[in-house]
């Protein structure tokens, strides 16, 4: 029986143990999960949405505790791991408990980057009560408590998380300002023009945007926040501040144990530490091929591969084209693959900006191959772009990505019955061509059979057109009308 211990009980860990148990029906693997958070593993992606809808905080949990019990998974919450003893293959927790392992998985996630703002850390080295981050359930609870008494909030950081947090706080009825160090919002994914379009969307929601500026100081008075001072000297009055300046892989435990860490815990294609074959890392804390993950889909893809690896099934992790999507009502941004925000030689871009509709689309090509793109305002093409990047061996038809999928309902198009070519099959159900319909209509009419309405009836009767699915009736009707209209009326 292999003893697998997972450090961290976030999204990566949850996915890993789910897949592991799903494939290990014989329970050959003993699974222990030790997580610092109090809560059962939950969907971190939906935290910002919970700002708008607090009751959804109760609906984030993936599985109830009985699920873990039934699956024979030992889940230990609210416990921080402090050391890894690689020699004796044992971890030690803050409360003194130790756990032996055959295989150790580090899924410690990432922690919020706290920029050097004076005043945000109090004298007892905790975050000021009116200032928060938004990485965890507890963070969210804390913010929600603060919101009750607040009227103005400042969000520090205009990247993905900052925008989501701002949107969430906006629906709570607060006045919001975003302060962003970069020249334009989401500068990691967007170019100037895209950033501009996004800014206009954000401002149209009533959120103030201040780019190219840092927050230098937080002006506090006891438990209250009064304002923040910006690098240009100006102040923004506020009573809550949310720090959303990015995150840093939580790799301290690993580095203290002597494992290579650079951006995160360095792992190979089997998600195994390059220094210790008994230790793996997945999710935000792991660095594969120079890239440290910060995305749930990456974490899950890695968890799936690692589950196979732990079961001695041959599997390798290869990074998928990255899709970054802003989840906020009225703010639609998707960045897919390599957006190539800087102009490099051998790259070129195609941009489609429709100011009237507030949509901006940019596809990036390197050596004439599509490598990525961004969509602001209208993101329907993002899925097609991601699919195209998934299959680089096929040509990518970029029309649909730029111009939108052709979903116009042709059925309401006026069919000009006079000009539809003779050989067109009008009734597919019965294989009736326009020619046949015209002949029948003309003959019936010339024979003085009836007026147009009953001519149509007779044509349908004779040719069987329209008796199947009925979808051709508008076309049949138009053709008969045109054919009979050209004849002189009978007595």
């Amino acid at each position: 029986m292999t003893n697998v211990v997972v450090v961290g009980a976030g999204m990566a860990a949850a996915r890993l143990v789910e897949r592991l148990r799903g494939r290990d029906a014989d329970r050959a693997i003993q699974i222990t999960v030790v997580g610092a958070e109090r809560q059962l593993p939950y969907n971190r992606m939906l935290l910002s949405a919970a700002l708008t809808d607090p009751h959804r905080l109760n609906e984030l949990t993936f599985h109830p505790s009985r699920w873990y019990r039934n699956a024979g998974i030992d889940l230990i919450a609210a416990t921080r791991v402090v050391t890894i003893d690689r020699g004796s293959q044992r971890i030690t927790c803050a409360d003194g408990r130790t756990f032996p392992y055959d295989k150790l998985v580090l899924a410690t996630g990432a922690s919020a980057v706290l920029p050097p703002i004076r005043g945000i850390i109090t004298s007892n080295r905790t975050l000021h009560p009116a200032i928060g981050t938004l990485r965890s359930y507890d963070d969210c609870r804390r913010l929600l408590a603060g919101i009750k008494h607040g009227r103005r909030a400042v969000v520090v950081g205009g990247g993905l998380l900052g925008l989501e947090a701002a949107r969430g706080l906006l629906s709570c009825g607060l006045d919001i300002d975003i302060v962003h160090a970069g020249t334009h919002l989401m500068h990691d994914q967007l170019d100037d023009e895209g950033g501009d379009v996004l800014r206009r969307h954000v401002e149209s929601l009533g959120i103030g945007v201040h780019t190219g500026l840092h927050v230098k100081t937080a002006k506090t008075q006891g438990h209250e926040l009064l304002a923040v001072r910006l690098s240009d000297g100006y102040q923004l009055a506020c009573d809550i501040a949310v720090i959303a300046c990015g995150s840093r892989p939580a790799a301290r435990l690993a580095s203290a144990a002597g494992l290579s860490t650079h951006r995160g815990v360095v792992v190979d294609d089997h998600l195994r530490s390059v220094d210790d074959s008994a230790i793996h890392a997945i999710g935000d804390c792991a660095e594969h091929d120079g890239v440290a993950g910060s995305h749930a889909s990456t974490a899950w893809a890695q968890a799936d591969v690692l589950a196979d690896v732990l079961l001695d099934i041959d599997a390798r992790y290869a990074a998928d084209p990255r899709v970054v999507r802003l989840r906020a009502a009225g703010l639609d941004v998707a960045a897919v693959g390599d957006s190539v925000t800087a102009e490099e030689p051998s790259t070129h871009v195609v941009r489609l900006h429709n100011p009237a509709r507030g949509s901006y689309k940019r596809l990036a090509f390197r050596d004439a191959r599509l490598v990525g793109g961004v969509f602001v305002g209208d993101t329907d093409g993002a899925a097609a772009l991601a699919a195209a990047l998934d299959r680089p061996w096929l040509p990518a038809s970029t029309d649909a990505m730029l111009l939108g999928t052709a979903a116009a309902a042709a059925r309401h198009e006026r069919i000009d019955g006079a000009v539809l070519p003779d050989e067109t099959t009008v009734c597919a159900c019965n294989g009736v061509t326009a020619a046949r319909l015209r002949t029948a209509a003309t003959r019936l009419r010339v024979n003085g059979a009836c007026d147009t309405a009953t001519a149509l009836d007779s044509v349908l009767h004779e040719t069987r057109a329209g008796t199947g699915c009925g979808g051709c009736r508008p076309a049949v009707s138009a053709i008969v009308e045109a054919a009979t209209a050209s004849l002189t009326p009978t007595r």
Partner: protein
Amino acid sequence: MVTTRARSRQLVVRSSCAGAVALPKRGRSETETRGWCDRAVNGSIVVLKPALDVANAIDSHCPYCALQCGMTLNHQGSGLDRAADCRAELEITPRDFPTNQGGLCHKGWTAADLLTNGRRLTQPLMRRGRGEPLLPCSWDDALDRIASAIKETQETHGRDAVGVFGGGGLTNEKTYLLGKFARVALRTAMIDYNGRFCMSSAATAAQRAFGLDRGLPFPVQDIAHTEVVLLVGANLAETMPPIMRHFTALRANGGQLVVVDPRRTPTAQQADLHLQPSPGSDLALANGLLHLVVEQGHVDAEFVRNRTVGFDDVRGAVRAYWPERVERLTGVPVSAMRKTVELLGAARSVMVLTARGVEQHATGTDTVSAFINLALALGQCGRPFSGYGAITGQGNGQGGREHGQKADQLPGYRSIDDAAGRSHVAGVWEIDPDDVPRAGVSAYEMLAALGTDQGVRNLLVFGSNPIVSAPNARHVEERLAALDFLAVADIVLSETAATADVVLPTTQWAEETGTVTNLEGRVILRNKALEPPQGVRTDLQLLSSLADRLGCTASFPTDPEAAFDELRRATTGGKADYTGISYERIAAERGVFWPCPADSHPGTPRLFLDGFATPDGRARFHAVDHRGPAEAPDVEYPLFLLTGRVLTHYQSGAQTRRIDALTEASPEPFVELHPSLAEHYGIAEGADVQVVTRRGTVAVVARICASIRDDTIFVPFHWGGAGRVNSVTNPALDPDSRMPEFKVCAARLELA
């Protein structure tokens, strides 16, 4: 024993031209109506044609798909029981039956052609040895040969070395007696049928959710009266055209149609909203829609609390399917999913209908479960004008999956392992319950093991053409060739029949009376309109003769009504209870919906109104997870290959490829590909190309089509030989239903 019945003659009356084209939606003015008549009659469109000669008009139903359009068969001339050699033509006119309301498609209109165009079997054929040709022989010789081959195989290799392979086109009477023949005369466990390739996923998922599987739990006429239909993996405009009038009426009444299909089919073109997921990702889409239903507060909490179990697990499971993730998995834009959920949430009644597009996958059962979960969470099951339904495809796909030609089943939709069921059926069969064999293996498993030591060595095939319709068909063909003996009973010399040792010619649909159960669970009757040619016998006759030769004393009635009466008794107490259904009632009541447990019972058009068929009466949610196609595209095989149907051909094409009007319309197999692929590979419209997969190659003609995804190609499966697409499909099986993954595999294109 022959019973004479008065055949009902239906007067087909021409109605005034009632109907409308492009009927106004709610809110639009009447003056915008276009077409030849502005009145809608009950929202439906009716076109009727008078019968030419009322005295010779016989009521029947189409021999093809599960809609079973009502038809009238008209003789030109004198009467019914004419000698076979002066058979005149039958003319087909549509009947105003609730399902088709006077409509027919091209297949239906031309269905009588095969009766008289000289392309059907008219005498038994036998080959003396391998390598010898098939030559005409007498019925006695043919039947004697089959019986002695059976005895030899069973004596040498045991009873299970003889197998039976049936079909979803066989009537209820034939299905029932075929199952009885296998278990009582042959005493083998090895019987299954081609419906395994059709309905097994939907059936398994419906059973585990509702305790019962009846494709549609309501009549098709209800469709016009619901508010939103989510139609998933179904191209009805081409596979069941006359049903579309119910959808047209739906939209005329202000309802909405949402179609989910990777191709922009004629059905998708008629939809209000079309979602085009990546092949094999429908389960993720369903979970994603359910995630949004929960997020937007559209869960019917009262319904979930009072009429279901298991929602908590499913709600937890779909937390992982947030819209952006699902967009990544399926390629369906978030905005389209949100729009769909908006429609679903606002509607008072919703129908969720699935068909082969999402069921013929190795994840088919779970995918259907995901859609059932969606319907249940919305509270849209077990109420009038709403519900989950599967659109059965084969003519008797419903009845065919109830009466025992399935490996694990006894008549009345009983499980072969259920003690009470075994006891009851054994009683009707007049055998000891212990003598009823246990469950056998599924269709592909049986076919893949033919001719091996552990497998079937002697196979009897009834009304099926697996050489064309089975997945991984080249392998199946090899296996069939490895049999010690193969006998095929069919109406034409199909690809499979052409390889047999003995071929028995059987009657066509208009030459025999029998019941089928249509997609609504409505039992209907086809009336004999024509004597078969001399030399052709009914399946009932040949089963009786074979049973006799095998020394089996059990009853094998040759009269259809007697067979049906026995079937009724066998179904008593089972889930599909036909006890109260009789030929008289069917004629008088325009079909009777099962369950109908007594003569006095009216039948059950709408199921589940008072409770589901589970022990506690509650429907069950079933948490499922996305897995994707068993074989995804890669560098070597970069495209998704989809397979499916065209309007003018039916299933393996054995019947329709022998009818000129239909082959003229669709003469050859083709591959649909996007213009950018055509350009990339240098393929012109009409060029000869090869579609290649890990299983083999199929030769087709290129059709360039902008409405298909640029990473997907589509090939219809109605042809054999070099154009047989099942040569290349993937036999990956669904673990619960044993359904093969016809609908997706990885392929590449090559110029021929």
